[in-house]
C-alpha cells in the first residue's frame, strides 16, 4: 500500500471505526436497515450543498450564498404553490432562481474581481431578503402538491428516493470533475488562475458556470429539503453552510494533494451525518454532543497522519 493510499484511507478508517463504535453501543437501533434508510435521507441535502461547495472550492473560491439560495428556492416554490401554480412550473422556476443567483455571484467574482467571500455573502444576503419578504417571515406549509412531496420522500425498490438523488447528483459531479474537459479546466483555474488564463482557458465563462451550477444545486437541495419536511421557513437553508464546507475540508484531508474531491466530500458528509445520528440514538446530552462532535471530527482528520511518512 502506497503512502497515498494510506493517507486516503486514514479518514475512511476513522469513519468505519465510528460506525463500528455506534453499532456496538446501539446494536439494534444504529445498524438497522431502517436507520441506514434514515441516514441516507438525512444526508441528502447536505451532500448536495456540499457538492456545490466542492465545485466552487475546486476553483479556489467560496460560495457563502448556498444556504440562502436553498431557502429562497424553497420559499419561491411554496409561494407559487400557494398561488395555485403547478409543480412543473414552480420547481423549474425555483431552480432557475438558484442558477441565476449563482451566475450573478460568478459575474461579480470573475468580471468585477470582488473577493468571492464578500460577493457571495452580499448576494446571499440579498437572496435572504427576498426569501424573507416573499414568505412574510412565516412558515409555509399549505397546498403542497403530492407530486412535489414525492421528490424527497418515500422509496423506490426499498431505497429512499433521496438516495437516488445523492447518487445522481454526486455521481454526475464526480464524473464532471474527474473525466471531462470542464472539470480539468476548473482544477487548472483553482490551481493557478494566471497560468490557466495564459494557457487559453475561458476563465470568466467557466467561473460563472461554476457558480451557476452551485446555485442550481443549492436550490435543488432546498427543494428536496422542503419536500422532505413538507414545510418551508425562510431561514431553513442557512444551517447548511458551515457543515457543507466542513464536509469539503474534511474531504480534502483524505486527498493526497489536499484538493477537494466529490468522494472526499461524501466521506465528510457521512462522518458528520453518522456522528449526529449515532449520538442521538445512543442518547448523549446536548452539550456533550457538541463536545464530542468537535472531538470526533478532529480525530477523524488526524487519523490519516498515522499512515503518513514523516
Amino acid at each position: 500500500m502506497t503512502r497515498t493510499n494510506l493517507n486516503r484511507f486514514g479518514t475512511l478508517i476513522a469513519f468505519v471505526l465510528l460506525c463500528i463504535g455506534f453499532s456496538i453501543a446501539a446494536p439494534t437501533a444504529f445498524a438497522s436497515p431502517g436507520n441506514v434508510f434514515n441516514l441516507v435521507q438525512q444526508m441528502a441535502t447536505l451532500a448536495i450543498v456540499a457538492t456545490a461547495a466542492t465545485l466552487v472550492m475546486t476553483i479556489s473560491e467560496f460560495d457563502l450564498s448556498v444556504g440562502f439560495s436553498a431557502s429562497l428556492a424553497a420559499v419561491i416554490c411554496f409561494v407559487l404553490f400557494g398561488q395555485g401554480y403547478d409543480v412543473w412550473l414552480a420547481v423549474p422556476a425555483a431552480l432557475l432562481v438558484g442558477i441565476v443567483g449563482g451566475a450573478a455571484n460568478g459575474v461579480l467574482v470573475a468580471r468585477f474581481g470582488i473577493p468571492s467571500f464578500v460577493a457571495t455573502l452580499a448576494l446571499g444576503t440579498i437572496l435572504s431578503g427576498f426569501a424573507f419578504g416573499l414568505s412574510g417571515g412565516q412558515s409555509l406549509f399549505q397546498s403542497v402538491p403530492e407530486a412535489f412531496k414525492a421528490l424527497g420522500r418515500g422509496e423506490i425498490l426499498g431505497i429512499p428516493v433521496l438516495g437516488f438523488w445523492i447518487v445522481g447528483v454526486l455521481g454526475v459531479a464526480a464524473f464532471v470533475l474527474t473525466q471531462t474537459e470542464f472539470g480539468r479546466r476548473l482544477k487548472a483555474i483553482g490551481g493557478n488562475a494566471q497560468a490557466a488564463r495564459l494557457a487559453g482557458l475561458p476563465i470568466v465563462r467557466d467561473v460563472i458556470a461554476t457558480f451557476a451550477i452551485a446555485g442550481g444545486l443549492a436550490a435543488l437541495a432546498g427543494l428536496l429539503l422542503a419536500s422532505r419536511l413538507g414545510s418551508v421557513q425562510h431561514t431553513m437553508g442557512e444551517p447548511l453552510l458551515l457543515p457543507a464546507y466542513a464536509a469539503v475540508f474534511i474531504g480534502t484531508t483524505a486527498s493526497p494533494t489536499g484538493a477537494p474531491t466529490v468522494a472526499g466530500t461524501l466521506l465528510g458528509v457521512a462522518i458528520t451525518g453518522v456522528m449526529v445520528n449515532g449520538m442521538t440514538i445512543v442518547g448523549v446530552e446536548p452539550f456533550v454532543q457538541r463536545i464530542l462532535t468537535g472531538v470526533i471530527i478532529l480525530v477523524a482528520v488526524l487519523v490519516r497522519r498515522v499512515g503518513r511518512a514523516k
Partner: protein
Amino acid sequence: MLDLTGISRRFGATHALEDVNLALSEGEVLGLVGPNGAGKSTLIKIIAGADRPDAGEIRIDGRAVHFASAHDAYAAGIRVIHQDAPLVPGFDTLENCYLGREYPRRFGRIDRKAMRAAIAEVAADIAPELDLDVPVMFLPQAERQFVRLLRAIADKGRLLILDEPTAALPAEDAERFYEVLRRTRERGTSIILVSHRLEEIAEFCSSAVVLRDGRIVARFGAGEVKPEAMIAAMGGSASERSTRATDTSAPLIIEIDGVTGGDLTRPAQLAVHAGEVMALYGLAGSGRSSLLNAIWGAIPWAGSMRLTGEVYRPKSPRDAIARGVSCVPADRHRSGLFLVEDLIFNKTLPLLSTYRRMRGLPVPDRTAERAEFLVAAERVSLSYRDPKQLARTLSGGNQQKLIFSRWANRHSRVMLLDEPTEGVDVMAKSTIKDIIRAIAADGNAVLVSTSDRDEALELGDRIAVFRQGGIVRIFSRAEASAEALSAAAQSRGAA
C-alpha cells in the same frame, strides 16, 4: 569551511542524491554543474537547511551541524538564492530583502530609512532603475529576479549559494550582477554557483564539480574549469551555430504594425516570414515579453496585426490558440505550471479538446493523452519518473521542458517563446533549439525572446533588439554580433 560527507536524499523511488562528498574551503568559489534533475537544487536545499538529508553529515569549520530550519543555516552565515525562489508578493523589494533578517529599529518601530540605506547601495550597482517601494507582485518578472539577487547579496554572510541566479537575465544585466559578485568574492566570502551557462562558471569559478544522477562524477581544480570538459563530464556535446539566411521571398506569417501594450510603450513594427525565427533581445524590462503577450492576446494592446494576411485581433489567449498561435510564457511558476497537478495534466491542458475519444463529447481520452505525453517528453528529453508525478517534484529545468512540451507536437502557425530555455541544461538546450528550427522549417513563424545573447545569435534568422519599451533595431544574421547586440540594447540617446 564546509564539509559534506555521504549526503543522500531520496524522493520515493528517485535517488536525488547518493553519497555526495564535497569540501569547500574558505574563500573558494565553486561551480556546481550538471544536467537537469542531477540533484543540484536538492543539494543546495540541504546545505541551506530547507531540506534534510536521509543520510550523511554536514560540517562547518569541522563541527557537525544539524539544520532544523533555514534559520539555523542563516545563523551559520549561509546566504542562498534558491532556484525559482518564491518572494512575498505583497512585499516591496525592501521588505523581501529583509525577510528572515534582523530589522533595523528606531523607537521600537521598524526603521525603513535604515533598510533603504542598506539595500539602495547594492541596488544601485545591480539594478539602478528598480523601484524599491512597489510590491513585487506589480514588478515584471525580470525585476523580480533582481530582487532575489539583492536579497542574497545585500546581507553579507560567509557562504553565498546561488542556484541559477542569471538564468533569465540578459548578458548585460548579468554582467552588472557578476561585477557585484566579484567584490563579494574579493571580500573572502565562499561561493557556490549553479548555472547552465558554463562560460559563466568557467570565467567566475576557481573550481567546479559535476553532478549527474545524484552523484559527483567529476571535479575540476583551478585552471581546469573549461566548458567543453564539463559538458563531456555531463555526457553531452556542444552544439553548432547554424548559418542560414532569411528567405525574404517567403510569405509573411505575422505582421505587427504600431503595436503598444504593457511595457511596450513605443509602437513596434515587425514582420516575420514563413520559416523564419525572429529572436527578441534586450535588457530586462525592455518590452519583449509585452510584445509576445500582446500577440498572445494576454494583455490589452493597441495597433494592428495581421496573421497570414488576415486581420488578427486576439482578445485572449483563447483567440490566439484558435488562430494557430502557440506560446510558452515566461516565469514558469507564476504563469505556466500547475504545480500540484501531474505531468500529463500540465502537458495536455491548452489543447485538451484535441484528445476527445468521441467528437462532440468533451471527455478526454486518457490513453491518447498519455501516449502523446510520452512522445512529447521524449522529444524535449524530459527526465521524469512517472507521468502521474506532480509537476512540483520535477527539477527546475525539467519543469521548463514540460511547459515547452505542450506545443512540441502541435502544428503552430506562429510560435511565441518567452525564455524557453530558462534553466535548461546545455544538452537539452540544443534539443530545444533543434525543435524550434524544425517548427520554423515547416513554414511557420517563430518569435523567441531570450536573455541568452549567444542563443539569440544562434537561433535568430533576424534579431530584434528592444530598449526601453520599443524595438531599436532589427539585425540580419550577417550584421549581428555579440558586441553589436549589446551596443544596441544599451545605447543611450535617441532610438
